[in-house]
């Protein structure tokens, strides 16, 4: 960079800039802090109201209440199952399809790719997709939220482009050593694609954890509800009575407000835990697609 004496205008620009960005960050952070602090704050402080950014003392009461509620714990397990299984299905389906499509010697490659891209521009829509899910008897099973989204066409193409960037010579070497296509994929190509795989794992996993719409559409049984659906009932429809009853039984005094906030935090914590990993990878991952194949 050239060294030059910053003018007053330039200084003012910098200061204004920093202030605007700090303000935007504060607007982003304060709701988080408020919800976290309130969920942990003792009842007295919550009743006083106002903007709570720091609990006077830590009170785990609200968390005790939600974790002693079988419905809530069950929903958490459903979400965990959907996230783990769903992400595995996503990765398996996506890699298995992306690998052959990255090979020039595959016959019909152009046609398949074209048909994949068409689905990105045009789709059957809500009702026809629902009818398919219904007709193959997936309604009210966890598979209804896993299988219809098994492959994202966009991710498929990004992964295919990534596979194409791996030097063919490496695969040839493995072939001479006696590896077949499956061996080449699982022993050579996938280990070389770890950064891409990590990105896709995280993105697919976050998608499953946060998914609300498919569950509302396809699942009517309340014991198969993922956490987002239950959370919506608790906060937006405001039905926390069942939790308060549980709280009374436990002879602990917990405010509905604290219960709602604790539930929100529990539903958010998994995201916050993987966020550092996400952050490390996503900049690379998001830009993978820009690598010309």
């Amino acid at each position, binding site marked *: 960079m050239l060294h030059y004496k910053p*003018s007053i205008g330039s200084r003012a620009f910098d200061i204004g800039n920093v202030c605007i960005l700090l303000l935007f960050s504060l607007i982003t952070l304060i709701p988080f802090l408020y*919800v976290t602090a309130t969920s942990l704050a003792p009842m007295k402080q919550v009743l006083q109201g106002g903007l709570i950014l720091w609990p006077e003392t830590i009170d785990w009461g609200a968390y005790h209440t939600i974790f002693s509620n079988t419905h809530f714990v069950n929903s958490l397990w459903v979400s965990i199952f959907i996230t783990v299984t769903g992400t595995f299905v996503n990765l398996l389906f996506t890699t298995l399809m992306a690998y052959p499509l990255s090979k020039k010697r595959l016959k019909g490659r152009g046609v398949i790719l074209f048909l994949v891209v068409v689905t990105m521009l045009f789709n059957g829509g809500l*009702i026809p997709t629902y009818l398919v899910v219904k007709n193959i008897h997936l309604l009210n099973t966890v598979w209804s939220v896993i299988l219809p989204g098994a492959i994202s066409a966009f991710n498929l193409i990004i992964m295919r482009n990534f596979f194409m960037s791996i030097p063919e010579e490496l695969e040839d070497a493995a072939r001479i050593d006696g590896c077949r*296509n499956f061996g080449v994929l699982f022993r050579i190509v996938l280990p070389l694609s770890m950064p891409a795989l990590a990105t896709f794992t995280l993105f697919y996993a976050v998608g499953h954890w*946060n998914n609300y719409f498919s569950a509302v559409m396809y699942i009517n049984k309340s014991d198969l509800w993922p956490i987002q659906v239950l959370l919506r009932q608790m906060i937006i429809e405001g039905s926390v009575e069942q939790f308060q009853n549980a709280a009374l039984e436990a002879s602990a005094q917990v405010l509905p407000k604290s219960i709602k906030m604790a539930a929100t935090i529990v539903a958010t914590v998994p995201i916050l835990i993987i966020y550092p990993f996400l952050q490390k990878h996503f900049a690379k991952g998001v830009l993978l697609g820009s690598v010309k194949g």
Partner: protein
Amino acid sequence: MDSTTEQHIKLSNAISKKKRFHMINDWELYVMLVPGILFFIIFKYIPMWGIVIAFQNYSPYKGITGSEWVGFQHFVTLFHYNGFWLLLRNTMLISFYNLIFFFPVPIVLSLLLNEIRATAFKKFIQTVIYLPHFLSWVVVVGITYMLLGTQGGLINELIKAGGGTEIAFLTTQEWFRGLIVSQSIWKEAGWGTIIFLAALAGVDPQLYEAAIVDGAGRWRQLWHITLPAIRSTILILLILRMGSVLDTGFEHIYLMLNSTVNDVGDVFETYVYREGLIGGKFSYTTAIGLFKSFVGLILIMGANWLTKKFGEEGVY
């Protein structure tokens, strides 16, 4: 003579063996495609074929093959339905507000971030503003309720403490669209900067140095170097947004809707969900879905054509 023939046979054997080896390999390659192709057929192409029910009186008992054909009747009903224009207005207005108020925010944010020289500070801001993207809409709408609700919502508590009267943010029609756009900005604007920052990272620093030598100040550098560097990115994102003018984000709107704001907040997606899935009007709502997809396709193609006309690279 004999020995050469033998050699020939050996050679051709070797070749056919090699060929067979490749065939086996490629056979495996085709096996790998099977799950993916099945997925696209079952969950993408069969539903496309299922669109024909938009031209039928579909009944779940008779199935697609047995249902009665009615031609464009559902489309005629749709265009004569007063609510249709309401849906179209709501959808277009929310999209339009998003375009005016949401779309420029990531651009401005990335321009501001680009001017920050202290790497640690820049990283910190980026970490914070990317975070909301990973929260679910349920959590974002839930937090909105906790902040703006009338019973114990933070803002209303503060208003009351200041001697004012409660404002029913969530159940007032005038607030609805503003809230939707603000939530979108809160959740996605930070994340939206990634693509612009990537484009900006590719700008040659020498351009700025040359501009400084020529006496250009910060604003002039911004105007003549930084902005042109992201112009094509902005255009591409605009085209993509054109294609999704009628997609307003089901989860988000659905979670924010309640009976008092239905008149301003009901959009195509929520209507299709309510009338189609809950109300069982499969054919009618499929017709709406088809109308929506069709308009989206035309808009994206039109926008792409226009961009190319202006000498920029389109999406395809």
